[in-house]
């Protein structure tokens, strides 16, 4: 059984060696190093473009998606081999995309054939950049209290309302969006899942400035936006189940980000900056103890990610674990950034000016504080675990 896999590994290794440009094997250092695709894509360099084209041609931007829609059609084992081989040469992901992480899986599960044929190949090739329209001003964790409405006008939907926390909405081409199509239905009913072009008349965006100084999110306004009837995914009024499915997906992938290696651990960075005692131990005792305890949790989390993946491969149900992964992953990344701020001391406080690297350290720290808010707050995750996994009673 191992043999065909080893053959695949050999081929993959050779192909990657031949096709992954050297520039794409270097660490991601700045935002421009990440390729998000889209109509207005601006590649940082030729290598980035080439790498996307080559990988997309094989469907390896989405290794496990079906071949008929442009995916790689790999088995889970093969996908793992590909990931391993990419890690081996430090190859960057060719494409980052909410289309890949979120919309794609939903379309594959809930979309009709026409929708899949229309949208998935463009996601695979990075031709359309998607954003997500879930949260609304004032709704917060109570996602289902959304008010944006889509009225049935016979030949089209008329969308009015506003979304918030739409990541990169100002740079996105299309949006997948939760709207209320049945205003009289109960809270979780009457929600539908709609796709539309951000270039449609009546769509406008306004970036939100965060405490980190970045503006990755927007508030997005819909003023009499006309959306073709066929752009509704799944059953009208049943969009909440798609949303839930996607949230679970988002949770695991957020967790996955934090679990992934490749970057220096906080302890490794500390050792370089703080130095060691004669016996090789980190010079700062309190920091060393805190780092060790953080590493214990980090290693346990990485092993848990591995275990969950292996359980999934072994056919076990892992749905109940997604909130746990999201929660623990978020807390660990926050704790990592807090520790790094301690390691850097006053250098970590620098905000701009020479030697401040634009306040990278402080900004990463501030950014991390959102980990336990976005994609379902820590409180929401703990509530899901308590109620759905532990079956604790409602009040």
């Amino acid at each position: 059984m191992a043999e065909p896999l080893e053959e695949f590994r050999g081929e993959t290794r050779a192909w990657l060696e031949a096709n992954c440009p050297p520039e794409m094997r270097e660490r991601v250092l700045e935002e421009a190093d990440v390729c998000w695709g889209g109509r207005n894509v601006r590649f940082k360099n030729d290598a980035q473009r080439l790498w996307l084209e080559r990988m997309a041609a094989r469907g390896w931007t989405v290794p496990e998606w079906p071949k008929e829609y442009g995916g790689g059609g790999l088995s889970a084992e093969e996908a793992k081999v590909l990931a391993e081989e990419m890690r081996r040469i430090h190859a960057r992901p060719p494409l980052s995309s909410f289309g890949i992480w979120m919309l794609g899986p939903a379309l594959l599960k809930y979309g009709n054939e026409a929708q899949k044929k229309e949208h998935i190949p463009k996601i695979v090739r990075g031709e359309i950049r998607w954003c997500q329209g879930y949260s609304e001003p004032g709704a917060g964790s109570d996602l289902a209290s959304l008010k944006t409405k889509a009225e049935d006008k016979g030949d089209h939907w008329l969308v009015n309302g506003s979304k918030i926390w739409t990541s990169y909405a100002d740079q996105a081409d299309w949006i997948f969006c939760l709207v209320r199509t049945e205003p009289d239905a109960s809270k979780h009913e009457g929600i539908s899942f709609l796709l539309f072009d951000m270039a449609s008349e009546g769509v406008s965006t306004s970036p939100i400035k965060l405490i980190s100084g970045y503006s990755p999110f927007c508030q997005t306004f819909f003023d009499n936006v006309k959306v073709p009837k066929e752009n509704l995914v799944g059953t009208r009024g049943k969009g909440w189940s798609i949303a839930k499915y996607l949230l679970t997906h988002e949770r695991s992938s957020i967790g996955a980000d934090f679990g992934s290696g490749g970057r220096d651990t906080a302890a490794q960075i500390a050792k370089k900056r703080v130095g060691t005692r004669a016996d090789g131990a980190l010079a700062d005792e309190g920091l060393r103890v805190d780092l060790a305890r953080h590493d214990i949790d980090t290693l346990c989390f990485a092993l848990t990610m591995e275990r969950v993946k292996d359980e999934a491969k072994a056919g076990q149900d892992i749905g109940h674990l997604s909130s746990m992964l999201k929660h623990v992953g978020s807390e660990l990344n926050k704790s990592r950034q807090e520790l790094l701020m301690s390691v850097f001391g006053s250098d970590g406080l620098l905000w701009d000016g020479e030697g401040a690297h634009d306040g990278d350290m402080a900004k990463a720290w501030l950014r991390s504080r959102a980990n336990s808010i976005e994609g379902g707050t820590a409180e929401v995750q703990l509530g899901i675990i308590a109620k759905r996994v532990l079956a604790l009673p409602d009040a």
Partner: protein
Amino acid sequence: MALVLNDEQAMIREAADGFFASEAPVSELRRLRDAGDTTGFSRDLWKKMAEMGFAGVLVPEAHGGSGLGLVAANLIQEAVGRNLSLSPFLSTAVLGATALAGASEDQQAALLPKLAAGDLLLALASDEASRHSPHLIRTRAEAAGNGFRITGAKTFVLDGHVADRLIVAARTSGEDGDRDGITLFLVDPKSAGVAVKRTATVDSRNAADIRFDGVQVDGADVIGAVGEGAAILDRVLDAGRTCLAAEMVGVSAQSFSMTVGYLKEREQFGRKIGSFQALQHRAAQLYCEIELAKSATLKAAQALDAGDKDAPLYASLAKAKAGAVVRLATNEGVQMHGGIGMTDEFDIGFFMKRARAAETSFGDLSFHGDRLARMLGY
């Protein structure tokens, strides 16, 4: 290796769960304690465990064992944790058998079949300080006659009061804390100069303080090479730590399950207390922690079975994490049970007592945090 149980292991898990739940549940621990038992377990149970292949789980089939490895031993120990079952499994089947894996063919042939049959109890006499410090060996073994003469004192020798053979770590050269110069010996506790004093512990188990006063041993009683016992000792300890981690996962999971059960049933202020959000969030947090400990423990056992060079790292990881988790799980268990959790009548207190003893044995969070940091290079 995939971090999941294979089919054989899944079967062992099921067998162990069923066995201990029916043969050695918490009520049996209570019965032995209340009867003033001084052995620390039922010898009948141990015979049954031998028949199940549990005693010989780490003994090669060639010597009459089942040779299933540490992952299997972990599953047995996890079931032990869930039921607080009393037996010499850790002292004999895990520590003893792992030490004998480094012994000569003659020694193995003489001892392993008996061990697997449940007819030989072993105890590891290594710790000399109340806080675990494995290479702090002051007990000296000096060349004498055709062997050695051992003098020194050991503490907290698990099941040392009933062992048929002691595995003694003594120093044949070097200074107190050195890793080099430690030698392992098989010592008959009935030898002249051995004084064994039983000590009872909070978890209704027994250990011993043992003095060696010029105890004469033969050259053939050395396990492995003279002066190189630390390599075997470290492996024995890492196996023990991993199995203790598995036991603590079992203790955590069971006390968590009892506590969640109580939250669903107990009413106060006209509501199930499990509907109070603060308790819900704490329970959910604990759930996450137990999942983390599970992964580390399985990985440590797999790594030790595979002879992975990082196995010591994973053993420390598992022991550190499971220790922290079991403390949280049992403390939260008692707290959420409220007043009745403090009474001897309820079982939850037994779990808390065992949790602390397991956490303390072979190094706590402070010890393993330090060891892990060193292994990670800082």
